[in-house]
């Protein structure tokens, strides 16, 4: 088992770290306070071809491997969780389903635009009554001649309002339960589609999280993704990949908080010496370093599994479960080590703690991950 990165992965990591430090970090505080979408980062991601990192060159992707892509999310999350959310939702959730399940025509039409970043992608599964119980889809899709008519609404959709395409799930045959859900590629200007209320959140303030409204929305027949009834499988397999992205985000947030805290405890003096000279601080740091490292290893293992195994469900679930809880734990402790200053906006750790929480919730709550893991273990 080789734990070293290849030369190209090393160089890619250096690129992502440099880029994050110089191009993303300076705006992180501002986009959090102003709750605004990271349009600057998006522009730069497009320019430097970060929008299709793990996807094949033939579709305009960068042709890199999964691990390289996850490292990009990790490095971006270290400095700005909002920015990493935008990129991972676009890449893992908004683009992957088309690559895996799309017809040649759909792939040719949408992938190049998504992989080059000309289009921003999004994924719409969650509804007011279908969160963890995602199979309880109420949005309906009825076939009418050469098009489907969609009615219903989605909530908590990342990149909403900025995305060009949305992978939307809707019920085509209620009698079949899970097997009655279908997936559609919805373009932002399809008639009957609109973006509704924007959520005000605890963290990832700059991420655009909105309601989607379908009022007799016309979706051409050619935009059915996969077959009717295959929607649930598409959603679940997509989320497997998305979960690895969230795990990467969580690891990044934890690493960022730890880095800031190590800097802080070296400088801050109380009782005549730097905090780093107190054993409590030292032991906290040691503990957090180890947890973060363990989380990172689970993450990388999941990334490798996605690339090399038929299914990566278990690895992805374990990675997300552990990395998210690590991020929450580490960021909380980091705020504590900062003391009063950590509670103010002058230091980034309070933002990191607020940002960390979402990783335990979206793309399948930690409880869902436990359901997935125990189901396999106990069968």
């Amino acid at each position, binding site marked *: 088992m080789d734990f070293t990165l290849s*030369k190209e992965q090393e160089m890619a990591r250096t*690129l992502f770290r*440099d880029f994050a430090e110089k191009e993303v970090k300076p705006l992180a505080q501002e986009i959090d306070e102003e709750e605004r979408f990271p349009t600057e980062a998006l522009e730069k991601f497009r320019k*430097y071809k970060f929008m299709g990192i793990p996807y094949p060159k033939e579709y305009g992707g*960068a*042709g*890199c491997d999964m691990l390289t892509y996850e490292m990009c999310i990790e490095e971006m999350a270290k400095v700005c969780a909002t920015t990493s959310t935008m990129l991972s939702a676009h890449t893992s959730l908004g683009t992957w389903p088309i690559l895996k399940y799309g017809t040649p025509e759909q792939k040719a039409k949408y992938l190049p635009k998504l992989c080059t970043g000309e289009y921003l992608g999004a994924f719409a599964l969650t509804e007011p009554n279908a969160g963890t119980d995602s199979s309880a889809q109420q949005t309906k899709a009825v076939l009418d001649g050469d098009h489907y008519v969609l009615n219903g609404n989605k909530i908590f959709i990342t990149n909403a309002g900025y995305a060009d395409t949305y992978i939307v799930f809707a019920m085509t045959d209620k009698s079949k339960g899970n097997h009655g859900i279908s997936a559609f590629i919805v373009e932002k200007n399809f008639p009957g589609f609109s973006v509704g209320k924007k959520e005000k959140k605890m963290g990832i303030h700059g991420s655009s999280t909105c309601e989607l409204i379908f009022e007799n929305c016309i979706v051409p027949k050619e935009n059915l993704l996969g077959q009717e009834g295959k929607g649930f499988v598409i959603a679940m397999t997509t989320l497997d990949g998305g979960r690895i992205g969230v795990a990467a985000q969580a690891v990044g947030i934890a690493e960022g908080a730890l880095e800031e805290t190590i800097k802080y405890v070296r400088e801050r003096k109380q009782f005549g010496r730097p905090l780093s000279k107190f054993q409590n601080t030292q032991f906290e740091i040691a503990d957090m370093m180890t947890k973060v490292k363990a989380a990172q290893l689970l993450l990388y293992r999941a990334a490798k599994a996605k690339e090399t195994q038929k299914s990566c469900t278990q690895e992805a679930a374990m990675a997300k479960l552990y990395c998210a809880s690590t991020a929450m734990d580490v960021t909380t402790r980091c705020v504590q080590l900062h003391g009063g200053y950590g509670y103010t906006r002058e230091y980034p750790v309070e933002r990191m703690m607020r940002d960390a929480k979402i990783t335990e919730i979206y793309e399948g709550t930690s409880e869902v991950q436990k359901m997935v893991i125990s189901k396999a273990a106990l069968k």
Partner: protein
Amino acid sequence: MNIVVCIKQVPNTNEVKLDPKTGTLIREGVPSIINPDDKAGLEAALRLKDTNGAHVTVLSMGPPQAETALREALAMGADDAILVTDRAFGGADTWATAHTIAAALKTIPYDLIITGRQAIDGDTAQVGPQIAENLHIPNISYAEEIKVEGDYITVKRQFEDRYHIVKAKMPCLITALSELNEPRYMTPGGIFDAYREKKIKIVTRKDLDVKDGDIGLKGSPTRVIKTFTKSPKAAGTLVSNLDPQEAADYMLEKLQEKFII
């Protein structure tokens, strides 16, 4: 149009520290980078590739690990890379280095050669002009704003208090300043292509038309007889815990003591 950019892999001397106990350089863990002036030269070449469709080759003379710098240049968008490497070239001063690089350049087509003004480890700024002399082509140093029109290149050539606008017919050599531009980042796809699709051409002693007496340590007219770190100055006095007015009064006292005022 063929552009060859000469780059050097250097330790990031901005991060090198002195070991306070031994007074020697701590070289471990210091990352290696493409010399900043060279990177600006590379960016200038890549911009000419973007606008004029130029073909960009990067060349570096160095030990095998200089390959990483060449890969980085390829990942930024260079088309080809050449590593000039051989134990026989080791220990070369600027004369022998320029002579060797020029010999390698003579084996490939070039219209424009771009080098950085100086490397952050050697700091001499000599190799660029010396390569030009070996190739008997004009060199324009301290270049900003490069424009290509047909066979001619027009450059803003910097001096301390002025600049000249100069025009020369290619082939010629220019040395670039890091102030010339903001070099682009690599792309992730570029990195993977650099390692998986591109091959670096290796040029060794036997591939070059040079004499043993003109390369490496033997070919170097200058020789280092001693290296040392500067001795620490006699300790000054440091005062702390003064409020601003007290500090200002203290400093006035010292200024008067030293007859500054």
